[in-house]
């Protein structure tokens, strides 16, 4: 039973563990953290794209010289690098780099951004000098025209031509800056050559400004196509496309993950449904079990009630039996007491008999008969009484005889009176015994003032015959006990029984005098303690606990009621009866303790 229970428990545990792990597995599968990474990665790529666009805007602004500050061409790249590092760390920590497609896309982006960075750096350098020269051109041209205007003594027409050439060159250069074409380049080259020729025609002071102008225009001629080419190349660098590629990869991955998640979600749903069904099944099962349990419980309850009824019945029967037994015992007790009483009465009747016998014998042999003989002599000698008394030898003796007779009759009377007194006493004793017996027969508790020592004397008297017969010496250790209120009959019952038991206990004693000690004393001012001690056969240890129980006896003729009724009586008086023995053959001590209720002194 136990092993199968344990096996069931283990099985249940394994099943629960399996279900839990399946659920956990499905949960983990259906909510991979790739989704969170995905959102963040998309966000990072979006921001990089935005910065890339911003970067391009700044490049164009620099191209048309709106801004002289190149910081905005630096900061987007710095931010892009930061964002990319975050993105790369995040993605590579998810093992993205294991995929060759991803790796390719990743590297393609890196090379694109690297290329773009390189081109932008070149653009910055070239654009800066180009813008500077373009900005300077009008001033450079002004410097020449101003000097030309101041030149008064030269050929006006030639000066006009030079001025026009210079102006044309400026114009072609500015046009070239807007529309960079080979035609315009040719125009500029032509203009530069013209300027070279013009320079020779002009005085020394013009050489330096013309050289400066030429230098700057050459620079424009050189740098403008470079800047244009760089811009085209920058535009052609597919940074945004590479980012889109990565986004597409992310999307594909995410879709796959989503699909997987959905699949696992579905599995989880199915699993949950199964679990719910299982739960419902278990619930139904449980409910059924519950019904069965209820039914069994009800049956049990009914059986229980039935049993209780039967127990009650049995108890009642037992009680009845016990009270019957009690009655029987009481009767038996009464019979015993009656035997005692009758025995005592018999004893006393013996002395009554003896006394009566003595009196009647005395009466039969009474000297009063002599008085009758004397009176006959007197009547015979009625006429000569005097003579008879003085003369007759017989008559002479008569007065002496009468005197002697008076003494004898007086003595006889005295003896008979004594004997009758003894008789009366015996009769009184019988009356007492009977009265005691009668008073015992009443079962009701009646509290009356009594002297405990007198009660002890009564008890002794009621046992006196047996005590005398068994040669028991009674030692009385009566303390100074006032008159108390007590139930005379119960006390007497207990005392008679205890004395009788003590007497029996010592009946087999031959080696030493049989001595019984009666004690009365007050304990702690509230308990009256009466003890009966014998030095008889004692009580065995194993009997100590059951001597007060009903039906226990060690005597052949005993019925085991005495001590039991005594203990009951003690309890009925709110007291208790205890026994003590040092062991078999060492005597026993029975102690009765009842609450002390002294009689209030009458005022």
């Amino acid at each position, binding site marked *: 039973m136990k092993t199968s229970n344990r096996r069931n428990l283990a099985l249940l545990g394994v099943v629960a563990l399996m279900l839990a792990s399946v659920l956990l597995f499905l949960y983990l599968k259906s909510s991979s953290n790739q989704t969170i990474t995905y959102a963040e990665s998309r966000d990072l790529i979006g921001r990089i794209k935005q910065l890339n666009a911003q970067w391009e805007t700044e490049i164009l602004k620099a191209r048309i010289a709106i*801004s*002289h*500050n*190149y*910081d905005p*061409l*630096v900061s987007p790249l*710095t931010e892009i*690098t930061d964002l990319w590092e975050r993105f790369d760390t995040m993605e590579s920590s998810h093992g993205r780099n294991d995929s060759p497609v991803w790796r390719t896309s990743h590297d393609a982006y890196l090379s694109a951004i690297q290329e773009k960075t*390189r081109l932008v*750096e*070149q653009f*910055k*350098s070239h654009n*800066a*000098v180009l*813008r*500077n*020269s373009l*900005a*300077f051109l*009008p*001033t450079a041209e*002004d*410097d020449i025209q*101003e000097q030309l205007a101041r030149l008064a003594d030269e050929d006006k027409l030639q000066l006009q031509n030079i001025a026009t050439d210079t102006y044309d060159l400026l114009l072609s250069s500015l046009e070239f800056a807007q529309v960079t074409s080979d035609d315009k380049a040719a125009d500029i080259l032509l203009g530069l050559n013209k300027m070279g020729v013009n320079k020779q025609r002009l005085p020394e002071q013009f050489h*330096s400004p013309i050289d*400066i102008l030429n*230098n*700057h225009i050459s*620079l424009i001629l050189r740098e403008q196509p470079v800047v244009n080419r760089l811009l085209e190349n920058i535009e052609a660098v597919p940074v945004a496309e590479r980012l889109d590629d990565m986004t597409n990869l992310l999307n594909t991955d995410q879709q796959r993950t989503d699909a997987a998640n959905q699949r696992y979600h579905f599995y989880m749903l199915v699993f949950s449904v199964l679990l719910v069904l299982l739960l419902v099944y278990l619930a139904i099962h449980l409910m059924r079990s519950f019904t069965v349990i209820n039914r069994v419980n009800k049956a049990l309850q009914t059986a229980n009630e039935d049993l209780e009824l039967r127990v009650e019945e049995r108890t009642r029967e037992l009680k009845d039996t016990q009270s019957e037994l009690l009655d029987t015992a009481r009767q038996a007790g009464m019979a015993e007491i009656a035997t005692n009483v009758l025995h005592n009465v018999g004893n006393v009747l013996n002395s009554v008999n003896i006394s009566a016998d003595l009196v009647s014998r005395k009466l039969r042999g009474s000297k009063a008969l002599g008085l009758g003989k004397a009176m006959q002599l007197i009547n015979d000698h009625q006429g000569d009484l005097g003579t008879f008394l003085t003369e007759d030898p017989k008559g002479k003796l008569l007065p002496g005889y009468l005197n002697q007779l008076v003494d004898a009759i007086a003595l006889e009377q005295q003896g008979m009176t004594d004997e009758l007194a003894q008789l009366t006493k015996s009769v009184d004793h019988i009356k007492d015994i009977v009265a005691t017996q009668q008073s015992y027969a009443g079962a009701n508790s009646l509290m009356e003032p009594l002297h405990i020592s007198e009660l002890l004397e009564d008890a002794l008297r009621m046992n006196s015959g047996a005590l005398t017969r068994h040669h028991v010496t009674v030692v009385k250790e009566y303390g100074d006990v006032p008159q108390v209120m007590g139930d005379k009959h119960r006390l007497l019952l207990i005392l008679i029984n205890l004395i009788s038991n003590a007497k029996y206990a010592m009946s087999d004693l031959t080696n030493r005098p049989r001595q019984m000690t009666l004690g009365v004393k007050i304990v702690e001012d509230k308990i009256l303690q009466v003890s009966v001690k014998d030095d008889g056969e004692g009580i065995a240890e194993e009997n100590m606990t059951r001597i007060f129980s009903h039906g226990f006896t060690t005597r052949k003729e005993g019925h085991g009621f005495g001590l039991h009724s005594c203990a009951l009586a003690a309890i009925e008086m709110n007291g208790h009866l205890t026994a003590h023995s040092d062991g078999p053959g060492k005597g026993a001590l029975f102690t009765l303790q009842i609450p002390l209720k002294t009689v209030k002194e009458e005022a």
Partner: protein
Amino acid sequence: MSPSFHRLLLAPLFGLCLSAGAAPLDEPLKPLPAVPQQNPLRIELGRQLFNETRLSVNNSLSCASCHRLENGGADNKAFSLGFNGVPVTINTPSVFNASLNFRQFWNGRADTLETQIHGVVQSPSEMGSNWEHVVQMLTADAAYQTSFANAYPDGVTMNNVQNALATYERTLISANSRFDQYLQGDTDILTLDEKYGYQRFKDYGCIACHQGVNIGGNMFQKFGVMGDYFKTRGNPTEADLGRYLVTKDEEDRNVFKVPSLRNVAVTAPYFHDGSAKTLEEAVDVMFKFQLGRIPSADDKTLIIKFLKTLTGEWGGKPL
């Protein structure tokens, strides 16, 4: 003087009248940003490391040996001396505001301060050490070990040493120059000459390269746009190749990072080769080879006056 020039001259003067309040000016040059908020433990650690001579292989040089904060963040030599007493091949740029440069080193071979630090410590001509040695040395030092443990979860590592130094360097901002105060709206702080100087600076096209928050430091440029500087100077060296050394692209021959002009008055000598001993020389070279123009003597003086307003403060004192 040309009318257009007058117009250009008037524009900021009108602006001056209009912005009598403290509204910041919208100029191609920008004032320095505030020092970023960073972990003070790391800054302090970086400061100690910056002055730590044991970073060099023979305990002779710290960062501060060449980047003297009391000396404009650089030294006054054309070429600083390496750990072995041999001069390096390129001029030491200022450490002040270096964090605002878009790349590090003259040829821009380092993208970050950390990479720059990485290079200098290992450079056989500069500190000549190696990171294994540096980390070992710092780990052996109980004080450093404690400082690192407090500032970084993983204690002394190469990355943390570089990060601490870079963190400290980001605090090296020479704020509060008179010109920055001017940009922030305090237009009375510059004298009229200095304002004219700024105007010339813009007109001559210096601003084409020296602009932005660091007044330079945000692009590469060829040294010798309008003429061959190196031919004129003579004695071409490997360092003169500039960015070509990094990219091996013919386009990048003699291309350098445009240096910041902040604190330019206190960071002589100038250029990557330290060839210009004074601001005047430097401005002359710039006009000749970069701008291809000949300024008037007055304009040059004005521009130099303007350049002197770019000197900022460090530790509450002007540099």
